Structure formats: structure tokens, C-alpha cells
């Protein structure tokens, strides 16, 4: 009897051991499976992020290509037409003993147009992008715009920006587009652009004193989407605050050095 009892006890122990081992095995296997799934999902997200980053970058590159092409076309074709006109005016002027003031003014005006066009197409060219300096170029752009007397842009900035050239270029395009938006839509007299540095970020405040716009209605407009795309490429943040009384304020934040999140790995360089 005792022998039988001990046999049963023995069997139960062995059975529970086997059961326990199987349970443990299943438990570990499930955990491994879940972990693998999680890792796979993470990888997928990373890959998607890398892909969208690459897509954005190639979009920007295509845009730059188009812009450079446009600049060249403008210069080559419109420039030639203006030059021909200027030459014809010059020939006419020489053929007349006392050329009228109107003719001389026309010549002067067309010379100005040619110079404007030349500067414009230079600022769109690719060579110009390779030795790009945001502050220098923004200043030149501002001088050009301020001299038109349509707007007064106040720009306060550091001496030098230590950011990759292509990041500077993207930032420049964002600011350029913002200025154009103000010029086209805001009826503003002044624009204030401030560059502020915090511990590890660059904050840019762009402010105009125009009539503002409905940020909700324009949130998916091409212009704003374009700027958002560019900001995303820089791993930055942007917000528009606008009211009819206070004009429009754009706050841009850009991480300096390594951004804290994973996306820093896809930083363009």
C-alpha cells in the first residue's frame, strides 16, 4: 500500500514538474514572440520614419532643382528680351539729337529691371546654395525688400549661425516664404524677425503688424503645408498665432546639436 502511495506521489511530482516545465516553456515562448513582434513594429516605424524623411528631402531637392532652373530660364530668356529692348532704346537715343526725357527714363527703368532680374536669378542659383549663409542672404533679401518701401523688415540676429548649410537653406526658404505671405496677404507695414538661442535650441520669432489670417481655415493650404514639411525635415516645431488686431506671429523652434528623440538619426547632413 505504502509503495503504491509513494508511486502516486512520485507520479504526481513528476507530472507537475513536466507540467511546470511546459508552462514555463510556453510562457517564455509567448514572451519572446511578443518581444519580437514589438521589435518588428518598432523597426517598421523607424523604417517608415526614415522613408518619409527621405521622401521629404528628395521633395525639397526637387524643389531646389526647379527653383534653380526657373532662375536660369528667367535670366536667359526674359533677360535677353529686356537687353534687346534696352539696346533698341539706346540706338534710338543715339539717332535723336535731343532725346526726350521719357526715353532716357525708359532706358534707366529697363536697366534697373535687368539688374533686379540678375540679382534675383543669382539668388535662385545652385552655386549660391553651396556657399550659403542664412544671415548674410536674409540680410541681402531684406535690404532689397526694404528699398522697395513697401515693407520695413527689422532683423535681429546673432553674428554667426553654426548650422549645416542645407539646414540654413531650408530655414531661409521658410522665412522667405513667410515674408512673401506677409507681403501678399497681410497689408503689413513692419516685419520683425528675431533669432533667440536657448540652451539647446534656436527660437525664431517672426512677427508682422498686418491684418492677420484665419489659421484654422488656412491650416491645410499649400503654403502652410509646405512650410510644415520643411520644418519637419529640420525636426523643428512651428506654430502660427494670428489675429486681426495683433497681426501674425510665427514661432519656430529648432533643436541644436542632437535632438532628444530617435529622429535625430535621420537628420540631414
Amino acid at each position, binding site marked *: 500500500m505504502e509503495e503504491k502511495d509513494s508511486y502516486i506521489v512520485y507520479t504526481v511530482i513528476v507530472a507537475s514538474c513536466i507540467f511546470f516545465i511546459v508552462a514555463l516553456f510556453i510562457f517564455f515562448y509567448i514572451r519572446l514572440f511578443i518581444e519580437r513582434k514589438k521589435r518588428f513594429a518598432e523597426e517598421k516605424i523607424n523604417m517608415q520614419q526614415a522613408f518619409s524623411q527621405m521622401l521629404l528631402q528628395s521633395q525639397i531637392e526637387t524643389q531646389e532643382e526647379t527653383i534653380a532652373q526657373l532662375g536660369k530660364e528667367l*535670366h536667359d530668356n526674359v533677360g535677353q528680351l529686356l*537687353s534687346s529692348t534696352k*539696346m*533698341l532704346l*539706346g*540706338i534710338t537715343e543715339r539717332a535723336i539729337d535731343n532725346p526726350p526725357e521719357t526715353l532716357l527714363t525708359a532706358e534707366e527703368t529697363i*536697366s534697373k529691371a*535687368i539688374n533686379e532680374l540678375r540679382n534675383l536669378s543669382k539668388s535662385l542659383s545652385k552655386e549660391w546654395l553651396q556657399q550659403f549663409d542664412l544671415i548674410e542672404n536674409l540680410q541681402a533679401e531684406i535690404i532689397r525688400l526694404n528699398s522697395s518701401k513697401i515693407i520695413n523688415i527689422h532683423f535681429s540676429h546673432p553674428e554667426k549661425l553654426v548650422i549645416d548649410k542645407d539646414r540654413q537653406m531650408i530655414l531661409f526658404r521658410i522665412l522667405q516664404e513667410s515674408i512673401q505671405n506677409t507681403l501678399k496677404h497681410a497689408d503689413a507695414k513692419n516685419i520683425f524677425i528675431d533669432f533667440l538661442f536657448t540652451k539647446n535650441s534656436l527660437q525664431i520669432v517672426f512677427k508682422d503688424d498686418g491684418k492677420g489670417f484665419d489659421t484654422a481655415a488656412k491650416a491645410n493650404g499649400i503654403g502652410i503645408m509646405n512650410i510644415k514639411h520643411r520644418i519637419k525635415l529640420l525636426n523643428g516645431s512651428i506654430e502660427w498665432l494670428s489675429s486681426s488686431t495683433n497681426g501674425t506671429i510665427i514661432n519656430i523652434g529648432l533643436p541644436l546639436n542632437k535632438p532628444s528623440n530617435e529622429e535625430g538619426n535621420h537628420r540631414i547632413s
Partner: protein
Amino acid sequence: MKKATIGLVDDHQLFLKSLVLMLESFKNYEVVIEALNGKDLQEKLTAKTIVPDIMLIDVSMPVMNGIETAQWLSTNYPAMKLVALSMNNDEYAVIAMLKAGCCAYLLKDAHPNELENALKEIIEKGFYNSDASNINFRKLLANQVNEKPLLNEKEKEFLGLA
């Protein structure tokens, strides 16, 4: 005085037409060849017996550009005076055209008075320096000096050993 003969190469027909009108108004010049690009010019030059004294060359042209055209002309017609006439005042274009054998670089939007003066000087002295107008040669030369040396350190070392 015998009229100086001039050839023109430019892909912009309207500009070419204005240029002919301008040169005719100067009285002392006769336009003998008009071509739309370097290749077109090569064909017209070989077909004609007349070789112009001066050739005005645009820089950016399709098929065969101004730089290639100037190089070809300097090799095949060394006596011909080559003059670059362009919209473009960027340093690369100016240097490339002068290196290719042009004795002057003029901008298309220069006043006819300046162009007339330039042609006169080119015929008399053989060159024209348009420093006073639009192109800053000093800046060009300063930039030239800054160009990278042709050989890097490794290559120099190699040559030293060879």
C-alpha cells in the same frame, strides 16, 4: 576707312536682330555672319570664303556653347578677335571665356555707346577692359588666388618620390 567685318553667334534671334541694327547704326561695321550656336557657326564659316575680323560670342547657347565656340575659333582662326557678349556676369563665365581666347567680355545690357567704344578699342589696341562698367576684374583675380592648389599633399609627395 574700310568697314570692319563682324560675325555674331547668339541663340536669341530677337537679340541678334537688335545687335545687327545697332552695329549698322555704328556705320563702321558690316555684319557678315549670323549664327545661332557654335555648330551653326562652324558650318557657316567653312561654307563662306569671308572670315570676319571680330566675332561676338554669346556664352550660353544650346548645341555648342560660347566657351567651346571660342576655343574652336582660337585654334582655327587665330587672327580673329573674339569678344564675349553675355547676359551673365558670373565669375566662372568671365574667366572661362577669357581663358578660351576672348579679348573682351561685354555685357548685353551695356549702352550702345560703351559697345561702340569697346569695338573701336578692340580694333585699335586688340583688347578692351570693361572694368569701368560692370565686371570687377580685381575681384575675379582675388578669387582666382583662393582657388585650391592643383595638387594635394599626397600627390606632391608622390611626385617628389617619382
